[in-house]
């Protein structure tokens, strides 16, 4: 992908991290991470607090030093290059605009450091503010604009210096839900328009799945899976990914001949080389459908609705099967026909499922798509 700077084409760059490790005393924040961002793509790092995603971003930014490993950008090793010389734009979780400068001055700050002339600086600042839709706020101070606007200005400021890489450290977490959704889409639109290689860190799976080209799910300093959002969601590589990204029902079953039988239903496996035996299958709530059970005899997939949680267009129905509970996600209109106390029959859609005998990962994580 390419983007232009005053009519001159500028190519997006590859970012490669090899064997990155970082320790804080006895705590391993990052454990030999290998990750490559293709030119122009947006990779989202997703995971719980303490998984190492922010550490990864800070190492790329140069705000911390790696204990071992290398980082190359566009083929150049920048591992020991100071943060000020890495040519990266960064947007922070906390509001990071300089309070004593106007919006325009904030955006122009990086250009001033690069000795860009006053007229050029102003022009570029207004261009960037136009890009984020805030040109009319150029002469306001940060405390005079809203949180969402501040983050948009921060994005404009990061892009104004035409960095090689854009780093976003949970930029939406301090915003309310509606603003978050709007700004998320705006960030993605701008990233595609500019064509810049981007690393986006978040703990919100909806954000990651909505805007990333690939999602990297991290746990305890390691990458469990790196794949496009649909693959991370529908074919999770480990039980941690299956349970962290979306909801999963844990149902006991038996593997035989490359398939798993769960409560009388035979389902294909994500990984075919699982040995025969007792396993726990992770079934998505969307793969479960419900119908009213009118016959008197019970069955392995017959249960009682114990709760219906309204989520807007969809509802989550909790069904008691006697020895376990199962979650099903239905449209709200379908769920309204099955109030609490109803007897229902479950059907599990034959999507490939992940199985595990323990908490160990079922398969090695992918590194590149």
């Amino acid at each position, binding site marked *: 992908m390419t983007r232009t700077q005053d009519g001159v084409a500028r190519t997006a760059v590859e970012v490669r991290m090899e064997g990155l490790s970082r320790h804080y005393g006895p705590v391993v924040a990052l454990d030999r991470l290998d990750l490559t961002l293709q030119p122009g793509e947006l990779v989202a790092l997703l995971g719980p607090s303490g998984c190492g995603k922010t550490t990864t971003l800070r190492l790329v930014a140069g705000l911390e030093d790696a204990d071992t490993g290398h980082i190359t950008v566009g083929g150049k090793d920048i591992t020991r290059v100071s943060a000020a010389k890495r040519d990266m734009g*960064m947007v922070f979780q906390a509001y990071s605009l300089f309070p004593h400068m106007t919006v325009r001055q904030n955006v122009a700050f990086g250009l001033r450091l690069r000795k860009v002339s006053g007229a050029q600086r102003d022009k570029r600042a207004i261009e960037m503010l136009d890009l984020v839709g805030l040109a009319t706020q150029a002469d306001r101070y940060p405390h005079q604009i809203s949180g969402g606007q501040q983050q948009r200005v921060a994005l404009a400021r990061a892009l104004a210096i035409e960095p090689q890489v854009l780093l976003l450290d949970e930029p939406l977490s301090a915003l309310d839900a509606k603003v978050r959704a709007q700004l998320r889409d705006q960030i993605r639109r701008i990233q595609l328009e500019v064509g810049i290689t981007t690393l986006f860190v978040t703990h919100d799976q909806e954000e990651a799945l909505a805007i990333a080209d690939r999602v990297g799910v991290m746990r305890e300093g390691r990458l469990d899976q790196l794949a496009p959002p649909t693959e991370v969601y529908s074919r999770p590589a480990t039980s941690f990914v299956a349970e962290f990204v979306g909801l999963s029902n844990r149902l006991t079953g038996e593997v035989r001949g490359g398939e798993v039988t769960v409560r009388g239903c035979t389902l294909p496996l994500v990984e075919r080389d699982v040995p025969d035996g007792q396993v726990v299958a992770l079934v998505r709530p969307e793969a479960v459908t419900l119908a009213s059970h009118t016959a008197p005899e019970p069955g392995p997939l017959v249960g009682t609705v114990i709760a219906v949680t309204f989520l807007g267009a969809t509802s989550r129905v909790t069904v008691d099967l006697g020895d376990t509970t199962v979650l099903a996600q239905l449209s709200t209109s379908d769920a309204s026909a099955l109030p609490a106390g109803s007897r229902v029959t479950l059907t599990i859609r034959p999507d490939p499922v992940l199985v595990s005998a323990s908490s160990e990962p079922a398969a090695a994580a992918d590194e590149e798509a």
Partner: protein
Amino acid sequence: MAAVTALSETPAAASAGRPSGMQTRRRRRLNVFRYLVFTVFGLFFVLPLLAMARFSLEGAKLGTWSLSAWRQIASFQGIGVPPLLSAIEITLELAAITCVVTLVLLVPTMIWIRLRVQWLARTVEFLCLLPLTIPAIVLVVGLGSIYNRIQHYELSALMLFWVYVILALPYAYRALAAGLNAIDVTTLSEAARSLGASWFTVIVRVIAPNMRQAILNALILTASLVLGEFTIAYLLLYDNLQVELYSISRSTPNAGVIFSTSFAALLFAFVLLLILSYAGRLRRGRG
């Protein structure tokens, strides 16, 4: 019948009326107490100042008014002491130099410690607050030999600025620390660094401008300390404003110029405080 009459009042109405009345009475008592305390303490501070102003305007005869004590500020020369005006000049210069040196020493140091060497923060805090615990006479004994050497070379009273910087450290440190605590130093510095700023630029163009109010507060405290300092200058045999006023009072006990000069020094500190506070408020208002 009385009980029936009382019971005919609805409980809700009764309970609504009573708390409201009690609250109003309590609020009124609190306000009276506040005004009383304000008046008593206000008089405690203001009466001596009024007396000083009155004495400074006293004429040659009791009960008459005159501005001669104020006019004498520029021209008074006591027996065996230099002119008052030179002491005023020296003190103002000392205040300016002390303010500049204190801020140049403390502001970058405190920012740097906050950004890069936080483990040193407690040590620096201890060192900066140490002068509070050291009596002036002990400082004089410790610095006496150094100042004897300085006087041997006949350097001026402006050399007092070194010891005044030490005296001002606790007050300036506290004012600046409060300013640093009010801003997100880490995020601002990381944002600046990610845009290509050097550490010098981070300190001078990003962090320090956001500490303006704290720097102004440190300035006011330092200047006030220097304007009012007597003990160290007197014991080290220098003539600053307070030493000069004391000398005048020894030679001419009721000289009106003592009161006019003291009052002028207080007014000066007060005006300085107003100007700096107004400048700080202007900056916030513009922002």
